């Protein structure tokens, strides 16, 4: 076995490494190179150094998109994790103890399935669904009810102050199910004796949630935070399909991927779009590095 080690290892690595190089590394390098050029999609790209990046600095729409990522980065993980934790707690522990076993609220098996539904749907379908939900006239799901009640319709995607939050609501709605399952699995691995002990000490459900569940779930929470942070840097499909005027009104919901798409495929500015891609790359990598650094501290062992 010892002599055959290297051919064996190489034999396994060759294919994935080649695939990775061809489909991941080389497009990255090319995007970096293109970001230093001016290229309209036809003919040879022209080298312009950091010209595209200088332009980025004074591009209002780019900064608007970056700000939106900032909002998403705070709101999406916070809201999603809060809701998912609450649901997971209610589904697994919230029902009290039965025969020494912690159980969820009545019907939790059913809810578990229902919460996971949005995760099964394709993102584009969700966006189309919410077009119907948010429609500004009486044929919209929400506004139809409001109009019937004699109220003024709410312009979810048209009102510039509301549009981004309407998009965030969809992202949260779609993500919650997955994190309920993730947190449920985490909670299942928390030893029941700890809950029993807490119960004997007279801890209420709220205390149990904050003093027992959250500390012992810390690992899982961090994973969720990283995932949702990455999702906050994307949001392309929902914005592209759902928002008014592709990221509108007046850029109120635009995100970087939307602007990359617009610059590359509408304006034929492939070089500039690549520069935005590179900027997004550095934003994502900074976020990932920061999160790893911050999460280095030890969690509670049990």
């Amino acid at each position: 076995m010892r002599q055959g080690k290297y051919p064996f290892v190489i034999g396994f690595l060759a294919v994935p490494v080649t695939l990775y190089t061809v489909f991941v590394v080389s497009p990255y390098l090319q995007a970096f190179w293109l970001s230093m050029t001016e290229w309209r999609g036809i003919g040879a790209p022209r080298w312009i150094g950091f010209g595209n990046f200088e332009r980025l600095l004074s591009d209002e729409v780019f900064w608007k998109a970056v700000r939106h990522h900032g909002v998403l980065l705070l709101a999406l993980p916070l809201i999603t994790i809060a809701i998912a934790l609450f649901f997971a707690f209610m589904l697994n522990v919230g029902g009290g103890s039965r025969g020494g076993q912690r159980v969820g609220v009545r019907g939790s098996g059913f809810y578990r399935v229902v919460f996971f539904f949005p995760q099964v749907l394709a993102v584009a379908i969700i966006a189309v669904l919410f077009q119907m939900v948010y429609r500004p006239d009486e044929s919209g799901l929400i506004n139809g009810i409001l109009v019937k009640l004699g109220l003024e319709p709410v312009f979810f995607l048209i009102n510039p102050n509301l549009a981004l939050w309407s998009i965030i609501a969809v992202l949260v709605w779609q993500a919650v199910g997955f994190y309920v399952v993730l947190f449920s699995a985490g909670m299942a691995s928390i030893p029941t004796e700890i809950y029993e002990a807490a119960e004997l000490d007279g801890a209420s459900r709220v205390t149990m949630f904050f003093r027992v569940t959250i500390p012992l779930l810390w690992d899982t929470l961090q994973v969720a935070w990283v995932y949702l942070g990455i999702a906050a840097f994307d949001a392309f499909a929902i914005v592209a399909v759902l928002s008014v005027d592709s990221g509108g009104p007046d850029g109120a919901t635009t995100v970087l991927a939307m602007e990359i798409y617009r610059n590359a495929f509408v304006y034929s500015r492939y070089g500039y779009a690549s520069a935005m891609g590179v900027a997004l790359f550095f934003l994502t990598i900074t976020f990932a590095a920061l999160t790893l650094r911050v999460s280095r501290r030890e969690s509670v062992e049990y």
Partner: protein
Amino acid sequence: MSATPDTPSAHPAPPAGTTPAESAAPGATRRDVLRRAAAAGLLVTPVAGLLGACATGGGDSGGTEQATGEKTAQNPLGVKEDAALEVVIFNGGYGDRYATDVHQKLYQAAFPKAKIIHQSTQAVSTVLQPRFASGNPPEFVNNSGEKFLDFGALVADGQLQDLTDLWEAPSVDDPNKKVRDTVMPGVVEQGMFNTPDGQRKPYVLYYVSTVYGIWYSGKLFRENGWTAPTTWEQFTALCEQIKSKGITPFGYAGANAAYYMWNVILSQAAKVGGPEILRNIDNLEPDAWKADAVIQAARAWAEIGKHFSDKSFEGLKHTDVQLRQNQYKLAFYPSGDWLENEQKKDTPPGFEYQIMPMPSLTAADKLPHGAIRAAAGEGYFVSAKSKNPRGGMEYMRQMLSKAGARGFTETVGAATVVPAASEGYQFPPGVASSQAALRAAGQNVFNMMFDNWYKELDTEARTATNELMFGRASAEEWAERIQRRADAIKNDSSIAKFTR
């Protein structure tokens, strides 16, 4: 020229790399999980890079053998009779049957030995970009749809065949008449582009005659005793009446078709201030958008938006709003004359689409009431670096023959730029009324090109127009921000400039 919104394909949001069980297993190292998650995050990043990977390779193969044949009366462009011809058609609103059933049959009849390779696509640039990059483009291209190839970039790279020979050649039906004299005035000019060395050459054939205006239902108006208004006072008075009947007087779709509305404002401006208002805008002249006539038009229409439209339309797509008109819930809708064909399925019998020009805004308008925006739409070009560019031009000559143009009209129900081919054809009521309006306008026909030349200016105008029409910006602010973008484009050396 259809209002296709940008609908990019979706890609999944959450990076699914780890199963819940895995991450929650007591011993599984959290840092591994995080690393994997971070790596998954990196994967989401540069979209354009992947595309670049296949698109920049290759280069000019340079000396492509180009086929030529002997020039004769039957073959004035000197096509090599057995040279193959590859035709790429955008399969959109007009389909591709007009090409396979009409034009290609005509070409085949003229050159029985030629082999025609037909291809149709809904994403022209996706299919053709690598072919241009590798120096092997098809002869004939219908460059249209949401993903059309940037004309400016094609011109700058010398990819387009100079069509002068075609326009100067004798026409198929009458050898004493040049092809250029068989088409409507302005068609050749519309397809002219500035070359990098400062000349202007005809590179593109715009084939379909398009008339823009405001549409209403003949039936609805007849039943209510309304007539199409010609002055602004009549227009606002009628809007009042329509509103009191519970019908929305005017509206357009803000979600994806705001350009229908800037088209209205600029057409109005052209009537107030004359067609040079639009030429200045196209030529990126300083303060072209801030001209009095433009501001006046914007202000007038913003008032219509405020009093006679429906705020919810900003969130609707063009098909939604058009459907509302078909349901008699909306009176006036601005569009081009593809509208009738587009709505065929939803139009109730007897609806009877009718077009009207913009009502005259002032008594001192430079253009008479009948003046209308008419243009040639749907661009076709021949690749200069293909193997058989002469064949491509001959294909165009056949398209522009009476039989070719008539066949197109009969197949898709739209008029072409060859007036002789539409004579006596029984158009549906909408196109009939737009053709009549075009005839009535006579010489008072105007057009604008900036949205074709500078996509970014189109986007800015759309966004600004929504802000204006739905009450978030004044006419001055509207003009100011579009002008700022026009100036930025003018000062940007990377964008090829065009003038007319």
